[in-house]
């Protein structure tokens, strides 16, 4: 019956000859926390800007909050909230003045502004800080205030562009709690991030690379369907030497560091992982490398995205 809050079909944006966003199709349901992931320069921000009505698509179309982004950008703008990674607040205004300003430019009348202001102060936990100059707040507080300001007009959809970049883990946790509580009230969240651990927080994901949507679905779906091989985690004393030895082995797809550990993805059919583990163990021991631990692990989203990127690069034919 009702249209999903965000729906894009074959969205494409060129900058000269460069294809920044290449035929992206996605849809986000009401109340979802949609994670839009990808490395820097993958086309995340360009996509978000198109969906916010800031950038015209070169081809394709999208509806946001039921409005066409190309023909009704002004309606799109008043129905959405947007929070950038810079937490765009006026640092020389007080908390209260910032809320007032954003309320005013979204056309809230005084009585509604008063009501919303109270709600936002409560939601963000900024009680008692109303008259503090924003520049003196800690990063975590600023981030929550920015979120509060961006939802002052109760938008149907909130776009968050890298909202947690440069924020400490505690504040990030609290921030994600805020995002969930807003989503529970029915607000649709569209979050871009390059923190893979945050991807697990999302109800659905889209993974973009080189302007293309490489994978999409719930985190579980992606883990189940998109991981083609088995991941073997190896803990050794000499990881860099070990990596060089493992890489050329037969049926090895992708071998990379994972902190001090090595993650080796084997393309060998399921059930043969034990044999591969034995082969790796022998190889390392023959070369005098002590193996502390070697076993298969369930893939994390990060593993999957690394493997998707490699697949994509291979298909792209270079780099």
């Amino acid at each position, binding site marked *: 019956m009702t249209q999903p809050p965000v729906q894009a079909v074959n969205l494409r944006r060129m*900058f000269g000859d460069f294809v920044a966003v290449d035929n992206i199709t996605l849809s986000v349901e009401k109340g979802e926390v949609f994670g839009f992931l990808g490395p820097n320069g993958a086309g995340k921000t360009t996509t978000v800007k198109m969906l916010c009505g*800031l950038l015209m698509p070169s081809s394709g179309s999208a509806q946001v909050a039921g409005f066409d982004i190309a023909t009704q950008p002004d309606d799109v703008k008043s129905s959405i909230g947007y929070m950038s*990674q810079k937490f765009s607040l006026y640092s020389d205004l007080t908390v209260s003045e910032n809320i007032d*300003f954003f309320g005013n*430019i979204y056309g809230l009348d005084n009585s509604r502004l008063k009501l919303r202001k109270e709600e936002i102060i409560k939601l963000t936990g900024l009680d008692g800080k109303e008259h503090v100059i924003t520049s003196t707040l800690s990063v975590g507080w600023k981030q929550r205030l920015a979120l509060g300001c961006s939802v002052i007009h109760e938008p149907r959809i909130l776009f968050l562009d890298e909202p947690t970049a440069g924020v400490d883990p505690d504040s990030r946790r609290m921030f994600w709690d805020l995002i969930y509580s807003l989503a529970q009230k029915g607000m649709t969240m569209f979050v871009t991030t390059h923190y893979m651990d945050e991807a697990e927080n999302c109800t659905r994901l889209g993974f973009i690379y080189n302007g293309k949507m490489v994978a999409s679905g719930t985190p579980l779906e992606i883990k189940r369907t998109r991981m083609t091989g088995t991941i073997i985690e190896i803990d050794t004393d000499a990881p860099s030497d070990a990596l060089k030895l493992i890489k050329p082995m037969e049926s090895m797809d992708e071998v990379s560091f994972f902190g001090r550990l090595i993650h080796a993805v084997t393309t060998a059919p399921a059930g043969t992982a034990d044999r591969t583990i034995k082969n790796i163990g022998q190889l390392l021991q023959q070369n005098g490398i002590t193996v502390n631990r070697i076993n298969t692990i369930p893939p994390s989203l990060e593993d999957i995205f690394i493997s998707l990127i490699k697949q994509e690069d291979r298909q792209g034919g270079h780099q």
Partner: protein
Amino acid sequence: MKSHSLLRPVIKKEFIQIIRDPISLAVVILIPIIQLLLFGYAVSFDIKHVPMGIFDQSHTQESRQLIRAVTASSYFLIADNATSRTQINTLLEKGDIKIGVIIPPDFADDINADKTAGVQLLIDGTDANVGGVALGYFIAAAQGYALDITERVLNKQGGSGLLKNFPLLSQRLRIWYNQTLRTENFIVPGLIATILMILGVLMTSQSVAREYERGTMEQLIVSPVKVYELIIGKLVPYIVIGFVQVALVTLIAVLVFHVPLKGSLLLLTFTTFLFLVSAMGIGFLFSAVTKSQQVAMQMSFVGTMLPSLLLSGFIYPISSMPIALRIFSYVVPAKYFLVVLRGIFLKNSSISILMNQILIMILISVIVLTLCIIKTKKSLD
């Protein structure tokens, strides 16, 4: 959601930000006053009391008459009566005198013999302006004296009244608008235009560039605020400050420098508004292009200080500039405001006389504001 209601919050926010930073506000208000006082007193193309040294070898009534004729005006001041040619040279070298006058011993004899009498002038040319003007004054004074002698000679030859019938070229100079030829009258309106141009561009460019640097510009563009509301909302508070500056410097011009304000205050207000819009529009454009406070500041200085000082006709007449610079000077709003200010202050010029300048300032404003809108809309690409 009426569009005008979105203009108000932008203006209000801008005012709060300005008031929150009282030091910058004070600086912005005081700078034009200080600059006007400093430059108004310091920059003067008049020469007065140029120190003069005289080596009078003639010591006659005639030579003293010449000296009196020259020093009767307040242009020259006898700093030293030298006793030798070398002393004059030394004084010039030390900079104690700017002009040395050497009257030969046979000065009076030559005059009385109805021969051409010579006087040697030594002028310190390091300051070409003072040197040139001093020379001019001296020659004018000396010629006045020469005319006296001519008359006396003619009288002596029995032709009294002959000179009256003599077809001498007589000049009747009338100087309009600035009868006393006071430099202040000429300089102060120019200073006002220049100072306001620089500050206007600087203030707006900093304020807009700050929005870009802090990411708030992005936030504003995502909001339902229209780009024109954003631009007008940003400019209005600075135009108000601009008017305060103009009011203050006008008061100083009239009260301190005694520049006559002959024209209509209404016309002054109207033209000031046009000038502020064009100047601040340029400031907005600079920061929409550079998106950085630092670069915008440099651009404001290079882009306004030099052109306003050098290309506005404030100091150097535009008509004597090379053609390329003359063309560039056409886009400097200060150039037109300068003409308008001099007109309103000194000539009581009417709106019809200043129509060309007014139309050009309107044209510059329209072009600049249109470019601002285009550039701001594109700025997120």
